[in-house]
């Protein structure tokens, strides 16, 4: 498998090509398949193996089941506040107001939601939720299928795509975007993992739905496949990434294993304790306590550990206490957590607390898009749509999460914006949208990376370089950050760059070659890590998940804005936050307390 060029690879034509078979990708494809457009989903794993499957607690949406007076505007207020005011208010408004329709559609498709006594969808309390714009106490707004909501959602979407006859290119890996002379995106270069066959997948619309990249960190709740492949492709093509310093550390990853323990545990009444048995969140967030924003809870936990009140032999974690909820509640509401906890922490939550520690969980940043999923770049400070390129879900930064995502908002983001992009692309293609054909040179350029890797005779081992990268990110870009450490981190990444460009592919086989896939994934991880490092170093303030102990205050005068990382010259620019929702008054920035 060497020396691929435009004349020796196959071209397969589609109207719309979705890269990624998780929640957002399959919600887009469902909309497009129903419209009769020639749509394909390319996924490096069989779709139900995508990371959406690991989402547990639920999908947050004002469907007025728990509280008939609930209001999507309250959800919007919570989300704006949660974002530490750099979430785009037009996008948040769209998500919160369209949300109920999108959730009811999922139910009609068959999603097995848990139910209330009156037969409606069961909703549980989650962090950062309030009634009446923060004045009416804790809300219960997260729609749940026990603690397996992501699994139920992903399978339901796959099932409905089967029903609508979506084309799936399963176990195909997308390598790079193909750009024509106008810098429009015309599809991707990809190969079949099973056979090694390489093809140019030509499309009028290419949707990056490739999820997050939590694997840039050594410790993460993310699946092994979360390697930022779409973002890596976009960055290599010279397109910007927004708010990349904003990484969410989930308060409750299982100590040692990293597996997620849903915030729903605290929603159902569980709480965190330190080595003294103290419910310490009462000190940090007197009102919301354990249901404060995730960034707030994660930092509080780290402070407890730093101050010597951590649990265990090394005093390096805290405990999540659930036993007081009783076996019946745990069996009914949190069966998956009980299973995970027994397997990975050797603890039965019915009797003992679960050892937990803040763990990298979610990428708030990504390819900047508008509410239709259209990706854009900037020229002289002005947003310019990238013809042919779309992005949805965790890969995108629309931005509804700003500097900190609220629990349960990621699944809502997936279905609302997956659906919106699908609807927009239908209209766009039917009205003649699309892009001119690329030249053979354009196609060859996008084959360079694959050809170079295939022809490597020596170089660096994938597994070693990956470990090195993950250690750098873990050590210098964690929950708390400091300029001098981050400078060291950026320097280390500069050294790793040379290795990334010279990886050794030991296995040259065409048959299910996972060595090749892992090498290409590592190069994507690196692009994401570098964008993260530079963005973090160059935002001199603390906001949401980005906490700097050398700049502990929020700086609204200078940084009430998105950061926009330009991969071409590795510089960080600024981009305005949208404060112009259409149906309500904008929520102005306030001091953020819980």
């Amino acid at each position, binding site marked *: 498998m060497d020396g691929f060029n435009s004349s020796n690879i196959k071209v397969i034509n589609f109207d719309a090509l979705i890269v990624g078979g998780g929640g957002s990708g399959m919600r887009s494809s469902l909309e497009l398949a129903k419209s009769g457009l020639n749509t394909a989903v390319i996924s490096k794993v069989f779709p139900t193996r995508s990371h959406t499957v690991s989402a547990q607690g639920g999908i947050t949406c004002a469907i007025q089941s728990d509280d008939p007076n609930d209001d999507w505007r309250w959800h919007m207020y919570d989300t704006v506040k949660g974002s530490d005011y750099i979430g785009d208010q037009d996008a948040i408004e769209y998500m919160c107001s369209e949300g109920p329709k999108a959730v009811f559609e999922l139910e009609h*498709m068959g999603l097995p939601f848990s139910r209330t006594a009156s037969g409606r969808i069961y909703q549980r309390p989650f962090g950062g939720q309030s009634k009446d714009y923060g004045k009416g106490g804790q809300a219960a707004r997260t729609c749940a299928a026990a603690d397996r909501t992501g699994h139920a959602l992903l399978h339901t979407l796959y099932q409905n795509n089967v029903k609508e006859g979506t084309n799936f290119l399963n176990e195909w890996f997308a390598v790079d975007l193909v750009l024509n002379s106008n810098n429009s995106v015309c599809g991707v270069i990809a190969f079949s993992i099973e056979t090694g066959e390489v093809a140019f997948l030509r499309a009028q619309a290419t949707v990056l739905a490739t999820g997050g990249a939590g694997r840039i960190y050594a410790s993460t709740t993310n699946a092994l496949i979360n390697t930022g492949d779409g973002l890596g492709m976009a960055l290599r093509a010279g397109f910007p990434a927004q708010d990349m310093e904003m990484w969410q550390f989930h308060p409750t990853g299982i100590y040692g294993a990293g597996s997620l323990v849903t915030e729903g545990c605290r929603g159902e009444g569980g709480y965190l304790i330190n080595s003294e048995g103290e419910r310490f969140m009462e000190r940090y967030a007197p009102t919301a306590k354990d249901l404060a924003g995730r960034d707030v809870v994660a930092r509080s936990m780290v402070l407890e550990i730093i101050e010597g009140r951590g649990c265990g032999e090394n005093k390096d974690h805290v405990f999540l206490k659930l036993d007081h909820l009783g076996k019946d509640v745990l069996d009914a509401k949190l069966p998956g957590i009980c299973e995970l906890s027994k397997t990975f922490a050797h603890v039965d939550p019915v009797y003992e607390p679960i050892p937990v520690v803040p763990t990298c969980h979610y990428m708030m940043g990504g390819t900047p898009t508008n509410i239709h999923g259209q990706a854009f770049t900037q020229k002289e400070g002005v947003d310019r749509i990238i013809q042919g390129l779309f992005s949805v879900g965790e890969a995108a930064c629309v931005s509804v999460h700003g500097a900190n995502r609220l629990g349960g908002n990621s699944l809502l983001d997936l279905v609302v914006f997956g659906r919106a992009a699908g609807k927009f692309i239908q209209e766009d293609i039917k009205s003649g949208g699309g892009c001119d054909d690329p030249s053979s040179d354009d196609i060859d350029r996008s084959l360079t990376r694959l050809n170079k890797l295939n022809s490597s005779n020596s170089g660096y081992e994938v597994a070693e370089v990956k470990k090195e990268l993950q250690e750098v990110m873990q050590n210098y870009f964690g929950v708390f950050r400091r300029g001098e450490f981050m400078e060291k981190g950026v320097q280390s990444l500069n050294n790793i760059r040379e290795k990334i460009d010279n990886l050794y592919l030991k296995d040259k*086989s065409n*048959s299910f070659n996972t060595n090749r896939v892992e090498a290409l994934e590592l190069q994507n991880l690196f692009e994401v890590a570098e964008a993260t490092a530079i963005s973090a170093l160059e935002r001199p303030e603390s906001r949401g998940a980005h906490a700097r102990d050398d700049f502990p205050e929020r700086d609204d005068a200078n940084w009430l804005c998105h950061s926009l990382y330009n991969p071409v010259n590795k510089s960080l620019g600024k981009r305005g936050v949208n404060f112009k929702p259409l149906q309500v008054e904008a929520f102005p920035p306030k001091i953020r307390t819980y």
Partner: protein
Amino acid sequence: MQLEINIYRYNSETDAFPYMQTFHFNKPDRDIMVLELLNLLKEQDPTISYRRSCREGVCGSDGMNINGKNGLACITPLSEVLKGNKLDLRPLPGLPVIRDLVVDMEEFYAQYEKIKPFLQNDSTPPEIERLQSPEDRDKLDGLYECILCACCSTSCPSFWWNPDKFVGPAALLQAYRFIADTRDTRTEERLDALSDPFSVYRCHGIMNCVSVCPKGLNPNKAIGSIKSMLLKDSAKSVEPIRVIEQA
């Protein structure tokens, strides 16, 4: 202690036949999962091929045959499966091998698609969700949680024998998941589609599916429910027996 790990290797490009390759590995201090062990071996030999994704037992990628029993590598601790210091890892049985521990799942997925694994309801949906009582929703527990790992179907001798005609435990579990769903209106049609001699009746209650399911589900029970519904159905269509009067 040195572990002796035997891994099934096959690459159609280079190997005429599959073979078992032995790796020696120092037993780790703590009890690790089989997947972690494989990941460590792959650092030494990057040519070993297997599927993996979530590494926590919810995505169903890494089903394989571990010391003779199907299971998910990511939630199977070494302490549970080692025989002395030995561990044999083979691909799921009964499906064609693509490479090493990777099998071709096409037949398995084809059976899944055959049962129409999506909710069908002929009425127009309401503005909000369709209502369902908690009791009716409870009927889906033990069914909807399937992760399509194929551990059950590939441990089933009936599936080995007729993978094209016997639907297999995984897909039958899903067939019953939709039959049991009060929101689905195509129960009759779903039962009719399973009423031939092969689709469901090739299940002989061997119960391997139950003993290997990594999620603790019971396909055999679901199959039993389908069979009894089919029986009731057929009883309905039989003419009632008349008592012949004595002359």
